[in-house]
């Protein structure tokens, strides 16, 4: 639609100019400055020494010992590996919990469906810090779980289950934080699914397990992939769950980066870690785009 004699180009530029300026300066700008800082030398007083250096990146793998020798230090590699593993497991658990729920919701009447989806989205819009903090009350020493164990005499007053500050606690926090993001895209792809397909498959002698494996799972694949990305990416850089539920002992990438800026004050190293995290996320997104394209090609070949 292009009305006779009206120039749209100018309008578009005026409408988009605020976006370009604000996001350009205050989002792209900071990322570029951070990239520069990651290539600088750190300053003992917590600032940046304006001199090109790869020390920020080198520090991810190597450490300087007392004798000024560079030696391999796996500590950060272990943190990276743990972040990756926890994010992966959290994504898988979210899928396991979210898939049947998404399917069940998608099969309800329109009214019920809308209400249930609204209930799924509410936690997403509430404060993540507070929702995670609620788990301290549940898991913590003397919290809901321990006091109910006490009540039933399964645990005496003095001892503790030590649920907090473990990988499991972090995992619960991560799944709890991002579960809605798994359910929504899966639900969206299931809702479009034609129920007649399931009837046709049953008519052709499929049992319920085969229905899931052969029909529902393949048809909701775009949603599963989308949901997994939406959960995996924020888990990778999560800060709140590892910080509150993992304590200081179990650092993850997100809390490690935050630590560099608030306590350790090693900006180039923190910036380098942030660049590394950003690169990981970009890789995941590229992988996702590839997967999507493949899926679309597959769909169009049918």
């Amino acid at each position, binding site marked *: *639609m*292009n*009305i*006779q*004699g*009206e120039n749209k180009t100018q309008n578009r530029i005026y409408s988009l100019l605020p976006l370009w300026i604000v996001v350009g300066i205050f989002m792209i700008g900071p990322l570029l400055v951070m990239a520069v800082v990651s290539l600088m030398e750190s300053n003992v007083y917590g600032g940046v020494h304006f001199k090109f250096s790869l020390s920020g990146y080198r520090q991810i793998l190597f450490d300087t010992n007392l004798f000024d020798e560079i030696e391999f230090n796996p500590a950060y590699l272990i943190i990276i590996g743990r972040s990756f593993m926890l994010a992966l497991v959290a994504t898988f658990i979210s899928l396991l919990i979210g898939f049947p729920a998404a399917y069940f919701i998608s099969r309800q009447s329109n009214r019920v469906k809308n209400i249930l989806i609204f209930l799924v989205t509410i936690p997403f819009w509430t404060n993540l810090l507070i929702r995670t903090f609620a788990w301290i009350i549940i898991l913590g020493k003397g919290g809901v779980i321990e006091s109910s164990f006490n009540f039933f005499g399964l645990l005496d007053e003095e001892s503790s289950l030590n649920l907090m500050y473990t990988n499991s606690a972090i995992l619960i926090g991560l799944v709890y934080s991002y579960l809605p993001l798994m359910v929504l895209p899966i639900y969206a792809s299931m809702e479009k699914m034609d129920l007649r397909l399931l009837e046709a498959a049953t008519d052709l002698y499929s049992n319920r397990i085969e229905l899931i494996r052969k029909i529902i799972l393949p048809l909701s694949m775009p949603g599963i992939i989308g949901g997994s990305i939406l959960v995996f990416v924020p888990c990778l850089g999560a800060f709140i769950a590892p910080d509150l539920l993992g304590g200081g002992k179990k650092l993850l990438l997100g809390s490690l980066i935050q630590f560099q800026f608030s306590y350790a004050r090693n900006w180039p190293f923190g910036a380098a870690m942030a660049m590394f995290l950003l690169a990981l996320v970009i890789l995941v997104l590229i992988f996702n785009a590839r997967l999507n394209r493949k899926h679309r090609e597959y769909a169009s070949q049918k």
Partner: protein
Amino acid sequence: MTLKKVNAIEVKNVTKVYRSSNTETRALRNANLTIYDNEFFTLLGPSGCGKTTLLRLIAGFEDITEGSINLFDQEIVNLPPNKRPVNTVFQQYSLFPHLDVYENVAFGLRRLKKDESLTKKRTMEVLELVQMKDYATRKPNQLSGGQQQRVALARALAPEPKVLLLDEPLSALDLKLRQAMRYELKTLQRETGITFVFVTHDQEEALTMSDRIAVINEGEIQQIGEPEQIYESPSNKFVANFIGEANLLSGFCKTNGENGLCELYTGHSINLFVPSHIKQNDKVTIFIRPERIKIVKSSKDKSQLSISEFTYLGNAATIQLKSNEQIINVNLPIEDLKVFKKGDYVDIEFPKGSAQVID
């Protein structure tokens, strides 16, 4: 008619090309037509043929690639839609959902800065005209499809446009309502005396409502004429096939002229007008409507034509005759339903003036 006709719209050499990043679609190619004042004019064609594009060009919703459009001898191509004294009835009505019926109908008058009493008078007048006066305070989503249709008509008529453009306005209605609205639209056009330009893909709609029809296919105007003209003597195979049922039979001609003679590959001879440019014994296509063919009983030794399909339609029947790879469709009148049955051998006759050599 002895009175000189006034040209309401002249479309001159109009071409419209849609360009997107890597494709070019030619929606309209060098279209020429003239629509007279006070006429019910229909643009007819299959979907994607360019008929709606032409309508949108007249309304000003698209920029023209080449050519010009005159409205009562005034060039309008460079005017935005709000400066053109034509109004549109949209396919999905496009009533403003946040305004009630009255405000929808008064919308154009308000933009034209008519004074309040005049706006009110005219709005109620057109609402009366489309029998929607009692619904003035309703919102569009509280109306049925047929009622929305009437409001859309009233909204477009209220500012007294010089030409009313209707983009498949009946296609969203169910069959019964559609048939009733045909009659109403035609009456409305006569009563208001406004020129209607009506876009449709439904040939029956076009034949029953129009004063004249332009048949469009693949961006080109195929034929312009009155309904009988288009039905009886289509100018090409596309028009013949698109409007009504048609037999397009192969054969060759023996003599040219008003009283020419051609022979079909089935062996039948037809007397018809053969234009002078057709050479003897060249393959030609002969057009004849199924209802114009007369069939008579015959027997196996006299005729090679037999009834291969017999489809009962209640008030008539269609039959298919087969001979030498040629298929001829014939409509059987009700009084002959019991006379013929599948497998019968028959002979056919072509009444004078029923057949035509076609390009």
